[in-house]
């Protein structure tokens, strides 16, 4: 099926080349980081993880969110998702690859990365994270490819793939739970040391993932003949809405616990993020934008007319995705390090080079996503009707 990715319109090739240029820029920036060291980033002795680990954390959520499509389809035979199950699975693949790359670019000694396998350490959550992420990548590659392959031959998927499909569904939450455990088991980092972390991770993932899928489905419908289906898009939006509300609630629970108990260590990071601490306010604008975006997303996604009208829906989905990205991709990680173990505040802001490297990784992710979606949509375009006899292409 790979050959489908080699035949495309001028627009397709322009987009691919654009991504390749961004990947190239990121790669050059990375070569400099490789040469000089992580000193080129904004990270410091006090904020020792930053944008890279934030992107990793956020993207684990995006990868896990494939389950919001695959589970209703395979467990509950929710027919509306029949067409887009593979779209969800194929989103998980570049998302996991980006996760791995973000960990890689964050390493001080990347050439030693295999030490994690050479000296397996089961008491380290990072070891488990590597195991579950690799497993999830393989499962999604296998399931997506086999199901799409049989669709191309207009045949039902082979029965041997079923157990893998079910395992992949159960596996999905594990990758994000383990990623949350990476944070929530650390003594002395008050912002992270909370049992709600794993739950909040899952809910924010299942809000941002479907929101991204809504946008991707709209893009697919605009640029290919394949129609993911209006109902499918609406269902995704509803999933996103429920989990967005859950995420807001979980955050409010956290704020309540910190401020009603009035424990200084518990309050400090939240105070820093929303109103600044000891005059340090670098992340306050980020959180303000985040709150506005989440508010826009919530209003649009829960109000039926706004959700149904696809113009506002696109805005709502984008706002939800970006809002969750700011929270998890930046403030969550930085908030854990402020104040430092001596109650001093040292702030963090990513450098240009750091941002370019991150952009390169994202572009590589979108490059792989483009290739996979090109293949999937070409297969779908060739079959006029989906497996339920509904027309799935727009003439």
């Amino acid at each position: 099926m790979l050959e489908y990715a080699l035949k495309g319109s001028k627009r397709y090739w322009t987009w691919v080349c654009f991504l390749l240029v961004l990947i190239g820029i990121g790669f050059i920036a990375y070569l400099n980081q490789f040469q000089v060291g992580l000193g080129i980033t904004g990270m410091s002795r006090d904020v020792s993880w930053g944008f890279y680990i934030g992107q990793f954390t956020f993207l684990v959520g995006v990868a896990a969110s494939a389950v919001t499509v695959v589970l209703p389809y395979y467990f509950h035979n929710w027919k509306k998702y029949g067409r887009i199950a593979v779209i969800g699975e194929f989103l998980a693949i570049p998302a996991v690859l980006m996760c791995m790359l973000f960990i890689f670019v964050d390493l001080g000694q990347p050439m030693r990365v295999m030490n994690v396998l050479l000296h397996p350490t089961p008491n380290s959550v990072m070891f488990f994270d590597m195991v579950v992420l690799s497993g999830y990548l393989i499962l999604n590659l296998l399931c997506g490819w086999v199901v799409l392959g049989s669709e191309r031959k207009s045949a039902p998927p082979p029965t041997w793939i079923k157990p893998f499909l079910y395992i992949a569904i159960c596996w999905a939450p594990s990758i994000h739970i383990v990623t949350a455990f990476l944070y929530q088991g650390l003594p002395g980092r008050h912002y992270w040391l909370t049992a709600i972390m794993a739950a909040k991770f899952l809910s924010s993932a299942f809000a941002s993932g479907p929101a991204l899928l809504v946008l991707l489905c709209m893009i697919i419908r605009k640029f290919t003949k394949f129609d993911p289906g209006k109902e499918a898009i609406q269902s995704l939006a509803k999933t996103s809405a429920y989990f967005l509300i859950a995420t807001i609630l979980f955050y409010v629970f956290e704020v309540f616990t910190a401020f009603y108990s009035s424990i200084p260590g518990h309050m400090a990071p939240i105070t820093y993020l929303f109103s600044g601490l000891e005059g340090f306010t670098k992340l306050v604008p980020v959180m303000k934008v985040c709150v506005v975006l989440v508010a826009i997303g919530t209003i649009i996604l829960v109000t039926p007319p706004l959700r149904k009208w696809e113009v506002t829906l696109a805005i709502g989905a984008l706002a939800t995705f970006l809002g969750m990205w700011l929270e998890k991709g930046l403030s969550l990680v930085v908030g854990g390090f402020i104040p430092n173990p001596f109650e001093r505040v040292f702030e963090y802001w990513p450098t240009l080079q750091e941002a370019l490297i991150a952009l390169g990784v994202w572009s590589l992710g979108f490059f792989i996503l483009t290739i996979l979606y090109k293949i999937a949509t070409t297969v779908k375009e060739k079959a006029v009707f989906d497996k339920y006899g509904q027309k799935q292409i727009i003439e």
Partner: protein
Amino acid sequence: MNDIDRRKFLKMAGLGALFGLTGLSMFEVVTKKHIEAAVEKYKILPNTLTAQRWAIVIDLKKLDEKIINDCIRVCHSIHNVPQIAMQKEEIKWIWKETFEHAFYEMEYPYMPEQMKNLPVLVLCNHCDNPACVRVCPTKATFKRKDGIVMMDMHRCIGCRYCMAACPFGARSFNWRDPRPFIKEENSEYPTRMKGVVEKCTLCCERLEIGKPPACVEVSNGAIMYGDLADPNSEIRKILATNYAIRRKPELGTNPCVYYLI
């Protein structure tokens, strides 16, 4: 027929090559002599200072600016700790903090100014239940039998998970090549490369040759060390007769650096 012959030949040739190239050397490598030599290499030296549980006691009453600066200077110079002026990339094994920051949970509004600003030496606590060791994905940081929390800078992949886990801020990362920032290199101690984490090692290289940790040696009696597991050790006697505090004991890492106030 011809095909089978060729396959047979290739098999034989392959096996032959395997034994010819590696077989002999494989048996030669490990002889009794080698094992004895290896054991000899890891034998405890006759002068080595040993303990079941090393610990440090710092008497804050005896610390003054001069002692503090001596401790920092000596420790950092013998361990080739780079002097990086930029706060963001600072590397430190032992350093000065004020009491109100080192023990911020004990601070109160009407605390005497003198107490607030009391200089405190802080270093790795060599915890009995170290969070950094628990999280390390490669066992590059580990707890020795004598309680010292050690670093293997050759194994560290630089993920900095230990820095996130350490509640004492005891760990530093080499954000760039540290060597140009070492004023006078001590050729008896290794330098580090970029991208690895480092911290105080309780001078295990000095204990090995019968010397006390460098900070203890230059502290003029303000810093003591000894075996916490031995009821007759000097530090156990000090702890039995003085009130001592530790940093963040509530986190359960069981820090082994005690402060007399």
